[in-house]
């Protein structure tokens, strides 16, 4: 996975607190592909979708200047709200992006059926990217055989018996492996800020 160091440092320049920087870095990792995919789904081409995700993230990073720490509001959560507004605006309107307007976008989000579809799509994509990222982390921590047991039986939907045979492992090993990975996966997804539904 390539992570655009120059863009990243550019984006990060707007953020002062180291803690928020970390949150932001993680945020970019998750949201960039999300925006990209949503844009592609709307017929944009590769380069345009890349530009759009870059643009949206730029805008979000600029609006971070307006962030005022408030009692009970975490930076992450605030960021997520701002992001959904910005992304919503970007992917539903082909006209040039305006300044992200928190309350206006929120209003729209709440109103039309189209917006609720976009909101849910955004939520799904974010969760998906969190899962993918969590999977990448877990995959690195476990042996290839353990991961293969999970991949074959859970992702690819093969039966545990088939996987046991193809991997040359006992059935118990396959069950143990996939269960532990699922458990670990959820922990990672939550750590990455994934919503539990």
């Amino acid at each position, binding site marked *: 996975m390539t992570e*655009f160091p120059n*863009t990243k440092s550019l984006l990060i320049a707007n953020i002062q607190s180291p803690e928020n920087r970390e949150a932001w870095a993680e945020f970019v990792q998750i949201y960039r592909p999300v925006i990209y995919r949503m844009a592609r789904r709307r017929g944009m081409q590769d380069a345009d979708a890349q530009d759009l995700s870059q643009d949206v993230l730029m805008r979000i990073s600029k609006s971070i200047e307006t962030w005022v720490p408030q009692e009970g509001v975490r930076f992450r959560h605030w960021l997520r709200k701002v992001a959904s507004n910005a992304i919503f605006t970007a992917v539903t309107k082909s006209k040039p992006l305006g300044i992200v307007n928190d309350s206006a976008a929120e209003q729209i989000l709440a109103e039309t059926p189209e917006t609720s579809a976009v909101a849910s799509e955004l939520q799904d994509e974010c969760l998906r990217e969190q899962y*993918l990222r969590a999977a990448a982390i877990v995959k690195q921590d476990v042996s290839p055989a353990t991961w293969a047991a999970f991949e074959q039986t859970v992702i690819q939907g093969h039966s545990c018996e088939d996987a046991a045979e193809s991997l040359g492992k006992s059935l118990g090993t396959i069950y*143990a492996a996939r269960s*532990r990975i699922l458990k670990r996966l959820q922990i990672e997804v939550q750590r990455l800020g994934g919503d539990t539904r």
Partner: protein
Amino acid sequence: MNSPEHELPSAGCDLQRVQNFLNSDHYHLEDTDLIAHLDRCPECRKYLEAQAGDPLRWQQAQDLLQTNEFDHASSVEYSAATCCGMDASQTFAVKDVLDLLVPSEFPNHLGRLGTYEVTGVVGVGGMGVVLKAIDPSLDRVVALKVMSPRLANNENARKRFAREAKAAAAVLHPNVIPIHSVSSGSTLPFLVMSYIRGGSLQKRLDQEGALPLVEILRIGSQIAAGLAAAHEQGLIHRDIKPENILLEEGVERVTITDFGLARSVDDNTITQLGSIAGTPQYMSPEQASGEQLDQQSDLFSLGSLLYALCTGRPPYRDDTSYGVMRKIIDEAPTPIQKLSPETPIWLISIVEQLMAKKKEDRFASAKEVHTLLDACLSHVQQPLSNPIPSKLLSKQTSIAKKNRMKIIAGIGLAMVVMLLGIGQLRFNYLNSKTMEDHHVFKPLSELDGYIESMMNSKYEPIFLTLAGLGKDENYLSIFPTDGGVTIRYSAYDTSDYLNKPQAKYLTRLTAAANSMSLPVLERNDLKSDGTVKGINYELRIVGNPETIASSTKKLLTEIFQINQSAICGFRYLNMPGKYSTSKGQEPRKLSKEEFMHEFDSEKYVYMGEQETNIFLIPRDLALEMPVTLDSKILYTDVRKLNSEELKRIRSSMCLVQESSSNQEKNVPDDSPATPTAHSDDSNILGTWRVIFSEDSGRAAPLEALQDIRFVITKDKMIMESKGRKQESTYKLNPSTWPKSIDLTEDGRTKPGIYDLQGDTLRICTSETTDTRPSAFISQPDSVNDLVITMKRISSEKLPTEPTTQVD
């Protein structure tokens, strides 16, 4: 804890144990009994799965971790999807392509594309799938690079594909994969390339690790040749890495493939600025930071590739691509010699130059690299008839080059020791802005030219960093001043300065200045509060450049008693706290453990200390060569060492031991006793190799010396170098001081002096005058002396024996 399986009967399964197993942080499935139990017990399996997550979670994991159509649609990978679903997506890509093939009439074929009969799949790349096919019209096997159908809908991707084809087809070179034709109009664009039987360089690296020197040079030279051809067409490959280098089976030919990312320099319209393409591990710093690329980027990647061939691993590794790129931009890789100590220094220097962070520090062109590597290959294959390329030697006068390698005179151990010291003198062009960027290392013998150039270009002061002067007193500085230079010696901690060992330098400086009728000025150096911090002793030398240079040199010689003492006063170097061991390289600061290990391995000896750092130098280097600062010098924090260790290290100055033991073994120099004469006559016989040579004040690069042998018989001295021989007669007279030697060649006799100590012989002759030199010192322009130091490699007296290579 590991209770036997039968203690877990299905009637009373140990659910707590299942729970613990699931929550444990260890993923190596260590509870074998429980697993064996799970094998048989569906209930426990069910329980395990339920505890791991409810059915919704299992479903969620399955749904969300599927690769979808956009994960691989981007020219830039960034979604984590590419990490876990890779294999699946590659299968997709192949399947997609194969689905679009026209059914073939041949049952064994996968299908037909155009007129090509597809017989197999070669691999999956960034842009599509590579198929193996038969070209029926010519009945030859070809490789078809087919654009992924997902990308074929994308106008940009199509353009890029067409451009790749055009770019690659324009390059006709044996080391670049030939493109036979392009089909870009059809629904499935593809290009037809030669099919090369064999594996990639990556595969070979995986199998063998580091490659033999000859192979590295052969492969490197061919890649450089292919790149040169591509660069001539204005192309940049942008993705030079072992995977993209094919090694043809049974033929020693290397082919660059996959110009998938190649693009014309001036074609900037399609690849979006800032989007990064290419494999991170072999990327150039400018690529990693998203800057505009030129051909120099490929040279960096070639350097990284050579690094991998030398060491068996890529230069930069990290868990994430981002980490790799960060390192490429910021860090120097682990020195090659650390991972692969047998790599020749000249090859390391080539790799280092290729991998210079700044592109202007790299080679000028791929062509130059090709020529260089080719010459190196010839050298390695036939060292006698092919010298190492002169580019790799220092730019200084090489005796071999000047063909002045007549009969020579030399220096002995004292000179070696001295040169060790001198070799380490370190000149800094002190540039206020970028001090670290301007390190220059020069032996003292080159000082004059240096001062001259300094004066001409009005540079900032030179700091001559000396050894052993103690804290805060570690340099003599030379400043350009009107019509000359000022030499400043700074004595700090003035209260008891004269009691300190380093005061002797001041005494000598004063004495030398007096003898040259130069006034020494004392200037107080004040602290900010007005108190005296130290005294700067300053000397001013004016005149024409030659006068300045020779006076400066004389002063330095006096101050450090260069020609008088076998043990040099500044045998080791005071180094700055922060320095790079060689161009573009990180200093090798070691942990105490590593440092002690190196020291205990007896390969390194004490070199010196500065500030809180303690330095070691390889023993062989310390003994044999005029040392130039290179990455072989190790250092660590002196404070980490305990007093025992420090004492042990500090007492390991092998030079002192060697020189004194030689002194003991031999009759002292100043004794004109005849037995010495007699023994010299027989002791000088044998074969010698040259370890140091200086001509007109310039030291010859070591590489120029390595093939030179002297065979000394009863009355003849024969120099052999690369098959050539030069003969002269000689006559020793050990009764003089220094001992005399007369060398006669072509009827002309040159007066010289010699010194023979055990297996070390030094000779100094005057090449152009009839005046016998008085010291083993080569001087520029004036007497034009040649100095040579030799080490005995055999005592056989076989004048006609061909010279043997020293390993």
